[in-house]
């Protein structure tokens, strides 16, 4: 382990701000991309469900019309 204590590790020899900025932004961008893709997947599935519900509504309206 190159650093004696955790606080040294965080200070990173005085360059802590830059190192943690780059690692933080890297993790941020990757997680951002991951969550946006997963959210998009959920939204797509939701769209398919609402499309099926829409067709259900149309079918029910047609049956109603057929009876009247």
């Amino acid at each position, binding site marked *: 382990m190159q650093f004696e204590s955790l606080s040294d590790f965080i200070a990173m020899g005085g360059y802590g701000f830059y190192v943690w900025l780059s690692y933080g932004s890297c993790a941020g961008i990757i997680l951002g991309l991951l969550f946006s893709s997963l959210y998009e997947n959920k939204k797509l599935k939701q769209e398919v469900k*609402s499309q099926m519900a*829409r067709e259900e509504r*149309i079918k029910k*309206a047609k049956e109603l019309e057929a009876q009247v």
Partner: protein
Amino acid sequence: MQIEGPNGAGKTSLLRIIAGFSQPDDGNVLFNMRNIKEDYDGYAQSLLFIGHKTGVNQQLTAYENVTHWLSVHGYTSTESEIYSLLGKLGLVGLEDVPVRTLSAGQQRRVALVRLWLNDAKLWILDEPFTALDKKGVAMLQSRFQQHLDKGGAILLTTHQDLTDTFASLQTLALEYRH
């Protein structure tokens, strides 16, 4: 009042002049004996205009279009009422789909829903029956009758013959003059 005349006789421009969109070369438009230019917003309060361009945004859904139009004209209505009206006009299942995916006839019907949701006295409609099936035309005519019974006025252009359906129909024929 039905305005008749061949294409290009100026039916649409007459409607637009009465609605206050374009300026006539001379003479002016009076409403309740007052020139509409003096208090145009007051005149607009009792005016409903549906032209060739229906005013329905392509990216929004039918429901969003109707709610937007209502609040721009100062009306409010409930979601269920709008859904039932859209359903009555044959738009079941298409209420929450972007309007660009609908056919031209369906898009006009989204605009025609407004007739059931306003209490303007004067309606100016430019060929309201285009792209409507038999059931749609019948519904529209019954709505016109309700509006006339309440003392409202309708100014419209159409190629349909309305003489037998409306007793108090007046017609104005325009000819093509250079």
